[in-house]
């Protein structure tokens, strides 16, 4: 064996994307079920139209934190104890455009756990003591986090990205202090009690269990389909936030883009990978692996209901700020000026195909992939098109994409440190 020669590599095999079964909760809200799973685990995701866009930041966030704080019949402790008895875990995720509560349990217990959870959420009464407790906790967390350079930069980035819209609002201490319990009650009634817009179930449950989940949930569903704001335009330009004692500076660079429904989305995703979305990306290779300015740098494309954005983020040694910004700029120009070489493009294609295989491994992964296209009214065919596009895309298309979307002058450039 000659160790200098790489073993022959093989093309990634075809992936068969599985779509869950669709059952209507009502005319606007679906329940998705993926039941073909060979082990005992199960997960139920419940989505509510109660995201940050629905109210002032701190109200949406406090309400989501207090979903299991008690009902008129049960204390918070009793609710948690009941879920514990069933060996269930839950997780609450809050974004601009919704709240997703995920319940994890063995399939034998999940229906019962779901009843406890749904009852707690829909009948939450926000006891005063729990409210005061979470308020104090949020204020303390806010005061701690506002000293992180990453948080400072992210907040400023959000303001520039969404400027002039309600998405630009970020919470602050004064606003947190002012929140009253009655606001939470009002918010809860409007956005939870009749705000359920999707349920997704993975698990080998019985048909009857699914029907039961559907029956007890449908009363809380939205009455008409959700609509999302789409006209965002970031405010370009540089902002620096000085933090004297910091030893690193956080960088956030980005601009408004679009979501999966846009014709450029697939090509832009591939370009984003080349730029900064894998270990061998241009940004990592240059700024970490060649210059050593940072522990990590990356770029992502993030999506919202009606829009999306590009974001490059890093924390660099304070003395390297200008050099790091110059290098990011240089990498963008390079992608706009020079066609990517075949060797690099082939590598990125193989990497992406391998990633696609990895992220479609198993029923939970299949459901997650489905959910991330379903929100845009698309089907899992999206992934077949994506794989096809990875095979087909050439250097000219990448160059075109870079010139359309990677202009430094369009970027909001934030630094904090």
């Amino acid at each position, binding site marked *: *064996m000659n*160790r*200098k020669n*790489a*073993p*022959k*590599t093989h093309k*990634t*095999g075809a992936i068969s994307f599985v779509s869950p079964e669709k059952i209507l909760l009502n005319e606007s809200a679906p329940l998705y079920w993926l039941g073909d799973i060979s*082990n005992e*685990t199960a997960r139920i995701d419940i989505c509510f139209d109660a995201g940050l866009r629905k109210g002032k930041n701190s109200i949406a966030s406090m309400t989501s934190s207090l979903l*299991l704080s008690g009902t008129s019949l049960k204390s*918070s402790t009793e609710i*948690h*104890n009941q879920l*514990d*008895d069933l*060996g*269930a*875990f839950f997780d609450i995720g809050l974004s601009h455009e919704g709240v997703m509560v995920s319940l*994890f*349990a*063995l399939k034998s*217990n999940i229906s019962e756990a779901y009843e406890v959870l749904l009852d707690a959420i829909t009948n939450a009464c926000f006891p005063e*003591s729990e409210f005061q407790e979470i308020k*104090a*906790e949020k204020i*303390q967390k806010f*005061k*701690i*986090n506002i*000293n992180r350079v990453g948080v400072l930069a992210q907040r400023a980035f959000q303001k520039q990205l969404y400027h002039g819209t309600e998405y630009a609002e970020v919470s602050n201490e004064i606003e947190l202090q002012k929140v009253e319990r009655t606001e939470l009650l009002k918010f809860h009634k409007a956005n939870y009690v009749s705000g359920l817009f999707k349920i997704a179930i993975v698990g080998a449950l019985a048909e009857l269990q699914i029907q039961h989940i559907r029956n007890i949930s449908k009363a809380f569903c939205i009455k008409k389909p959700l609509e999302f704001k789409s006209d965002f335009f970031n405010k370009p330009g540089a902002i620096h936030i000085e933090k004297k*004692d*910091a*030893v*690193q500076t956080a960088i956030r660079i980005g601009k408004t883009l679009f979501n999966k429904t846009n014709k450029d989305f697939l090509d832009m995703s591939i370009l984003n990978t080349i730029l900064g979305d*894998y*270990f061998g990306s241009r940004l990592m290779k240059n700024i*970490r*692996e*060649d*210059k*050593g*300015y*940072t*522990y990590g740098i990356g770029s992502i494309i993030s999506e919202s209901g009606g829009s999306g954005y590009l974001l490059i983020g890093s*924390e660099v*040694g304070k003395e390297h700020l200008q050099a790091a910004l110059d290098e990011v700029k240089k990498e963008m120009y390079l992608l706009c000026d020079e066609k990517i070489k075949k060797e690099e493009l*082939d*590598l*990125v294609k*193989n*990497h992406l*195909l*391998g*990633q696609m*295989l*990895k992220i479609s*491994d*198993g029923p939970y992964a299949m459901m997650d992939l489905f959910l991330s296209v379903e929100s845009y009214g698309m089907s899992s065919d999206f992934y077949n098109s994506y794989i096809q596009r990875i095979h087909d895309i050439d250097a000219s298309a990448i160059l075109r994409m870079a010139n359309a979307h990677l202009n430094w002058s369009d970027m909001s450039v934030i630094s904090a440190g």
Partner: protein
Amino acid sequence: MIEFERYTLKNGLKVLLHYDKATPMVVVNTLYDVGARDEHEDKTGFAHLFEHLMFGGSIHVKDFDQELQKAGGESNAFTSNDLTNYYEIIPANNIETALWLESDRMLSLAFTDKSLEVQRNVVIEEFKQRYLNQPYGDVWLKLRPLAYSKHPYKWATIGKDIAHIERAEMSDVKKFFKKFYCPSNAILCISGNFDSGSIKHLVEKYYGTIPGGKKPARLLPIEPTQKEFREKIIQRDVSADAFYYAFHMSERKNIGYYLADFLSDAIGKDQSSLLNIALKKEQNMVSEINAFITGSLDHGLFLITGKLSEGVDFDTLDNALWKELEKIKVEGFSDRKLNSLKNKLSTAKAFQEQGLLNKSISLCMFELLGDANGINEEMQIYNSIENSDILNFANSILKRENCSLLKVNKTK
């Protein structure tokens, strides 16, 4: 039940094979029996810096990541006080690429000056990002030397001091590789959808000819039994006072490890845990409180940490906390509580067993402890825990003389 096959190559490399036909992927996981505890006190942070250098090219391969990415794979690694672990996740039909790359860097590294220079800087930035530029970021750098006086757990994996990393030289790198990175000091686990007919042949092809080396003897200083309460107060520019109670506990192989894990879940894992209910919900003394264990292989730490509510002082919390701990030492927990903890552990275990990477790392860890099959036995141990065990255990460790307390005082 996770099934696996185990054998050892002539050069001493232990191999674990776990076949899973449900996945299209393969994970190649390599654990080296070396961690920060094996470092010299004047050259700390080295095991971790070395982990970075393992990606800087090997004897026959210039660019590790590039070759892996070409085959659709990805890789990462982590270092702890006890061990260093590397993995590749790759489409099953390209398994050979992962074996080629991982075996070549076991054979020898390229040892380039450029890689050392850059990774020194990267690790220094990591040090700043994780430990210096975060509120409460440096508490572990202070807590370890308070709790440990002799054992090398007294320094963190990242190192005692940035200066140690700055001073690392190529001769150190080479010596470290020669001593610790050899087949006899490693465990290889391959899991996923490999071809079971040819896998052993492939392993032999890539690893069989690597000189075995000698498994280094480990003679670590033993931490003397703590006899009196220790306390340290530091001032930091943060907005809440924070406390870190650290109690010495048993080593990983001892049943005490499982009891500690169980007890920490019961008193401080989530909102329904005992300290959360008593000190946060009922008495409003803390804005957060957690209990957890370090999970170390040698004698570890059982921790209770948290932040004081605005207007509460350390002494008030201290009194209330010890009152709760004394109550546990007398009463333990109800049957309901014990059962619910066991149910939660069962659920967590069932979810963990679905992750290919997770399984691979766990198999290697248990093999390092002496038997990979430990992965299939731990649930039984948790299920056998009774209230009397908890009582004995709580009484043996939750004592003031077994405790080190670090307080972070806000300056604002």
